[in-house]
């Protein structure tokens, strides 16, 4: 059963305030995922304090680095049920978990961070994991 939207709103805002597009419907997700050009980060947000409490600040820190995805999208697991199911259908061979994150390049999932790699870690560790993946899969920044 979904949580009160009043409770969830700040958790949504933690990502939307740093540039994430909130994908609230299956159609929103389809539009985001069918744009296969370039790089993207899709975050499956979650209420769970045990893991999401580190995930969102970790994402924010990672996006402060020099290499970052072209597009940012998020669905809220347990809240936007159809949108979440639609998102998971694009990586159906990976067991579902939330929070979790998918890095996409030209429409393909190149890196996935499942819940169990978030929940035992600090925000700094989550950021370091993501930053490393951004550099590895999204390439070095253009020279200044």
């Amino acid at each position, binding site marked *: 059963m979904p949580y009160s939207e009043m409770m969830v709103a700040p958790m949504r805002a933690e990502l939307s305030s740093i540039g994430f597009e909130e994908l609230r419907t299956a159609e929103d997700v389809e539009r985001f995922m069918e744009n296969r050009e370039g790089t993207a980060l899709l975050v499956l947000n979650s209420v*769970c304090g*045990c*893991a999401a*409490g580190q995930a969102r600040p970790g994402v924010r820190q990672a996006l402060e680095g020099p290499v970052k995805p072209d597009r940012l999208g998020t669905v809220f697991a347990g809240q936007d049920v159809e949108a979440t199911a639609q998102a998971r259908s694009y990586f159906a061979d990976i*067991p579902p978990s939330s929070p979790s994150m998918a890095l996409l390049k030209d429409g393909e999932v190149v890196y996935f961070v499942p819940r*169990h*790699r978030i*929940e035992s*870690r*600090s925000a700094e560790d989550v950021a370091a994991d993501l930053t490393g993946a951004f550099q590895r899969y999204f390439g070095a920044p253009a020279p200044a």
Partner: protein
Amino acid sequence: MSPDWHPERHELHGITVVVDTSGPEIFVGRCDDLDDHQVILLDVDVHEDGDDGRSKEEYVERAARFGVWKKFDRLVVPRSRVVSVRRLGEL
């Protein structure tokens, strides 16, 4: 340092753990609680040594990379059968 969201529960509450037993079974699930008598797991997968041609160690290696598909919503493992409880994220 993350806040303690559920101070009345065991420190592993909410953490995905690998529960190995003295028998052929090994479990992966989200720890709900743990005490001297039992380990309560949510969203649980179970593997028996040799199933699908995979040893317990091979199963855990794969689980650590991708996670698991749950077979049970909730499962209680008697502590007397438990050999170890480890965080999946640290394997």
